[in-house]
Structure formats: structure tokens, C-alpha cells
């Protein structure tokens, strides 16, 4: 295959939508393999990748379904190429088994889920945020996961880059949650210079092949990753395996395996947990929001401040590992916390689970296929102020 290349072209600001920004972010992150299956509202990502990725020396393939797409990206990543797929609820359901394989084998990859209403075919052309818990817990079994949410075109680019960096650094699939509103809202986007971007690549083994222990129980928990065909022949299996990659049912080895794949995420929570605080210093009431709901929440905060209501926002980009520290701080400091979500209440459960104080936690839910209006959030703020 041709050497991967980075096109050196001047990229002027452009009016693009969230899906396009995800594609651009992926290319900038070094994604050179995309496999997918068309589904609204994610399809544009595949279409753009089919055009762009070969120009950068990479590969696009439209697979026969989402299961196959997921298998193909894991295969490509094991063979050393950064890989991504993009889908929506029904396709994301199909991907869960191989997503589990990627957790078990610690194979970096990025899975974009542009959320729409569900269950089932649901609301194909309408936004939703109802796959949050599916993203955390979809694959069966014990696994830690990294789930990131995007809320704007700008986010789509930068958080996609982050998603790849985390997946490479921690050898794990990363789930990127978008939604129909973010996907199709256009904004002026000025792509940053490639040189200024921090792109992380997986650590490869430096020892001779005969010394290599593919799943070594290192302190950091992330063993160097050999690429298929580069001389470090080893076994990759979704069965629980020992440090050499061979299936095991020995208690000690089983425990070691599970603990390490959790530890490698846990030890790095501070780096992984991305959030933004807006007017939190003196806020009586705090909104906790993510994705497109956070855009409405942000606007509501501005409106509230205009009429001297002390309202702040904690915008979560990282949903899992759940950023408990900043959320706890908000809970300790505010009188009321409102959690607007386009679902029946998913992240609000995580907030409640912290159970740190007497703060009132108020869920605010929309599940009618329409996004929040800032005015309705403001209305809620007034009610509880």
C-alpha cells in the first residue's frame, strides 16, 4: 500500500456541518481506514471519508453491515492503521459484540454514534441523546470505556482528534457520541494547521520479538502494541487471556486481565476527563449538560446572567469515565443542579449516584425528537431559583 501522506494544502475557513468536521478531525488524527454502512444521520461521514481517505493514502470500504464494519476496523487497527467507523443507534447495536472484542484485545479504534431517537428504527432524522448508557455498557462483560460527546462543529474536529489520541494512548476503543443536531448544523470552521496539532500514536514494542510479552501487566497498564506482520508473532483472542495472549481460566490470570484493563483507564482519569466550566464560581444554580443540549444550556446561562440570575454550566465532553470530581464540586457548591438531556434521564443518574450532599438534582428531559430551546431551560431556572 502507498505510504500514508498528509496533504499540505491551504485550508480556508469553510461552512461545514458536524459530520464533515468529524471526518476532517479523523483525517487530521491520522485515521487511514474507514469501514461503514450507510445510516441516517451519520452517512455523510462515510461519504466524505470515501472521497478523502484515498487521497491521503488510506482505505475506505463500505461493508455489508455494521458488524462487518466493526470487524474490519478492528482488523485494520491490529494491522497498524488508525481506523474508524460511524453509525447511528441501530448500527451501533449491531457493533456491540465486536466492540467488546476490541475492549478485550485492547485494539485502538474510534466508533462514532450519531444519535437519533430509538429504540429500534425510532426517529431516524431526529436528534436524541438516549444512547449514553448503551455506549458505556453496550458490550457485555467487565470493561472500562471512554465515551466522549460533541456539541459543535469545532468540537467535532477537536474531540475526534482527542478520541483517536486516547484510543492510541490507552489501547482501547473510544466512542464518540454526536447527535442529529450537531451532525447537520453548519458553522464556519477554520481548520488549524496540521503542525500545531498533537497527534498521538500507539507505543510499539522496542524489545526484540523473543522478549515481547503482548499483554504484560505493566504499572501503567498499557502494554506496547505489536502490529500484525512486524515480527512480533503473537496470539490475539477475545477469550480472557494471559500475558502471552493465550486463553486462560486461571483465577489469578483472569483477575489480572480484568484489573489491568480497568486500571489503565482509572489511572488516567484526570487526563481523559474533559469538561468546561462556565460561570461556575458564583453560581447558585448549575446546569450539567453535554452534546447539543449543552449548546442550549449555554445560551440559557447567558440569558440568565443578563437578568442577574447566578447560573453556571458544567459542560461535559467526557461522559465516561464519568468526571465525578468536577461534578462533585458543582454539587457541593450549588443549591440546585439541573441536568437537561434528550432522553429519559441517563447522565442524571450518574450525578445522583455521587450522592454527596443535599443539593437538589433536577432532571430535565426531552424525548420528542426536538432539541431544547434555551428559553425552556431558562424557564426551568426561574422556577427553581
Amino acid at each position, binding site marked *: 500500500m502507498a505510504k500514508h501522506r498528509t496533504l499540505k494544502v491551504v485550508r480556508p475557513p469553510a461552512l461545514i456541518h458536524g459530520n464533515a468536521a468529524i471526518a476532517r478531525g479523523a483525517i487530521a488524527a491520522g485515521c487511514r481506514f474507514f469501514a461503514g454502512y450507510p445510516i441516517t444521520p451519520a452517512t455523510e461521514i462515510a461519504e466524505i471519508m470515501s472521497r478523502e481517505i*484515498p487521497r491521503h493514502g488510506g*482505505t475506505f470500504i463500505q461493508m455489508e453491515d455494521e458488524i462487518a464494519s466493526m470487524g474490519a476496523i478492528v482488523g485494520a487497527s491490529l*494491522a497498524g492503521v488508525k481506523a474508524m467507523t460511524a453509525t447511528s443507534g441501530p448500527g451501533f447495536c449491531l457493533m456491540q459484540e*465486536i466492540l467488546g472484542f476490541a475492549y478485550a484485545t485492547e485494539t485502538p479504534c474510534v466508533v462514532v454514534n450519531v444519535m437519533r431517537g430509538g429504540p429500534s428504527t425510532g426517529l431516524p432524522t431526529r436528534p436524541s441523546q438516549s444512547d449514553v448508557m448503551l455506549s458505556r455498557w453496550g458490550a457485555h462483560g467487565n470493561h472500562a470505556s471512554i465515551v466522549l460527546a460533541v456539541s459543535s462543529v469545532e468540537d467535532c474536529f477537536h474531540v475526534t482528534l482527542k478520541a483517536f489520541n486516547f484510543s492510541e494512548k490507552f489501547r482501547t476503543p473510544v466512542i464518540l457520541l454526536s447527535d442529529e443536531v450537531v451532525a447537520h448544523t453548519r458553522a464556519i470552521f477554520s481548520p488549524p494547521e496540521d503542525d500545531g496539532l498533537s497527534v498521538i500514536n500507539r507505543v510499539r514494542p522496542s524489545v526484540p520479538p523473543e522478549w515481547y510479552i503482548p499483554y504484560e501487566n505493566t504499572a501503567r497498564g498499557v502494554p506496547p502494541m505489536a502490529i500484525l506482520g512486524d515480527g512480533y508473532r503473537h*496470539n490475539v483472542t477475545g477469550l480472557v487471556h494471559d500475558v502471552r495472549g493465550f486463553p486462560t481460566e486461571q483465577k489469578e490470570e483472569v483477575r489480572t486481565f480484568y484489573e489491568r484493563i480497568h486500571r489503565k483507564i482509572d489511572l488516567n482519569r484526570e487526563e481523559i476527563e474533559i469538561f468546561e466550566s462556565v460561570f461556575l464560581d458564583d453560581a447558585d444554580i448549575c446546569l450539567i449538560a453535554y452534546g447539543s443540549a449543552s449548546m442550549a444550556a449555554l445560551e440559557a446561562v447567558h440569558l440568565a446572567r443578563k437578568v442577574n440570575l447566578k447560573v453556571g454550566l458544567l459542560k461535559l465532553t467526557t461522559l465516561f469515565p464519568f468526571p465525578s470530581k468536577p461534578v462533585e464540586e458543582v454539587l457541593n457548591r450549588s443549591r440546585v443542579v439541573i441536568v437537561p438531556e434528550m432522553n429519559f434521564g441517563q447522565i442524571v443518574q450518574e450525578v445522583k449516584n455521587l450522592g454527596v450532599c443535599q443539593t437538589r438534582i433536577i432532571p430535565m428531559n426531552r424525548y420528542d425528537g426536538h432539541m431544547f430551546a434555551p428559553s425552556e431551560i431558562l424557564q426551568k431556572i426561574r422556577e427553581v431559583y
Partner: protein
Amino acid sequence: MQESTHLIHQYLRHDKKFPHLWCPGCGNGIVLGALIRAIHHLGCSKNEIALVSGIGCSSRMPTYVDFNTLHTVHGRALTFATGIKLAKPGLKVISIMGDGDAMAIGGNHFIHAARRNIDITALIMNNSIYGMTGGQSSPTTPFGSVSATAPYTQIERPFQIAEMAIASGASYVARGTVYHARKLIGLIEQAIRKPGFSVVEIITHCHVQFGKYNQMGSHIDMLKWQKSHAIPVEKAGSLSDEALKDKFTIGVLANRDFPIFDQEYEKIRQAAMQAQP
């Protein structure tokens, strides 16, 4: 004999800490032997070979050999193999599957890999049953036989794996048996050598599950059954329908040239890279 096992030992993972899980007398070991010999004849380095399997008794095969080995999920081996081949075209990607793995849960991936004619070799061990889970019906369980989930007899007609591969567009399609072990080596070698999607359907026996349910005797009896039911494809043309009844052909069933996905994509890639942005 010693020489022959010596060759095999060069490829086994002797440092693996437990014995293989196949039942004594299972045909899977013969297939592994044939695969190793075929790869040895080809003169490939171990680093060049990627074995990608699904889930099942047959799919345990890669774990035992010193290549790049990948034991994936049930039915999806070809999807992983597709990603690997496209990401690293220099690898010889060989997919190891059972009949249930390839034809039931993985049937869709199988026909699409053949349609794309991607340069992967698919070896399918057809033992007419789900071995690993204890003898339930598979899409190749013969009409009228008995299984753990067809106690009143199987009323579905079986897929013909090789014929399905031909119809789906594979470049190379062969069928062999574990009884005809020497011939099998040649078929596998040719399959790996052939660019495009190559399929070798390997008729093997699961005396422990299928044989037991259908009173087919020991593994030796089942090998004899293979001997008496296999007709070399070269001979089949001259035989009457009556003589061919209940028999199956072995040998190279199709060997042809179609556009190969990975090669076609490379053309696209080159053109796209040259085009002005």
C-alpha cells in the same frame, strides 16, 4: 514419519501452556497439518502469514501455530481478515472457519467477501454440525439426519459451501476431505497462491457429535465414509446422476479471474493521491 512431524514441530507453539482442545480422532488436526505443509511448500516466512478464525472447535486452530494469529468472534472472521488485508496487503491472510461459523452466523460476510473477491484464503471445515457447542444443527447438517436440536430429524436442506462460493464470485474454489490429506495440501497451497478470494471447503468428521447422533461409527468409519463418498471432479462428468447420488465432488471446482478488490482499490488510491485537491 519423524521427518514429517519434525516439519510440523517447526510451526507449533511449543511454549503454549496447555494441550489443544480437540477430541482424539478429530479431523481438525489433519487440516492443521495440511495447512502447515502447504505454507511450508510456499516458502513464506512465518511473519507473512496471518491466520484469522472465528469461534468453534475448528477456529481454535490459529492459537496453536506460530504465525500472526487472531481468534475473533463467531462468524465474523472474514470481516477482520478484510480489514487486515486492506491495511497490510503484504500479509497472506488465511481465514479459518467452521461450517456454522462461515455459513450460518457468518453467511453474509462469506458471500460478500467472495463478491468483492478480496485476496483472502478461506478454509472451511465442514463437519456438518456445531461441534463446540455440543452437536446442534448447522446449515450443512444433511436433510433427514439427527442433531441435538433436530431430535426429530433435520428438515432443512443443507447449503453446498463450495457451490455457494462459486455463485458468489470467488476466484478459486476447491473441495477436499481430511481422508484425502495429501490432496488437501495441494488444494490449500493453490488457494493461498491464487490472487483473489479463494475457498477450500474441507469435509471433515465430528465423530463425537455428528457421528454419535447419526450412528456413523468411529472416526475411522467416518474417514472411510469420506473415501467412499468423494468423487474426483475430473471423473464426475462421466458418471450418471444415479452414480453421483449422495456423493460429493472433490478437487478444484473453479479457478478463474475476476477483478480483485484490494488491487482495484490500489488503483483508486493512486489516482486519488495524484488528483489535485
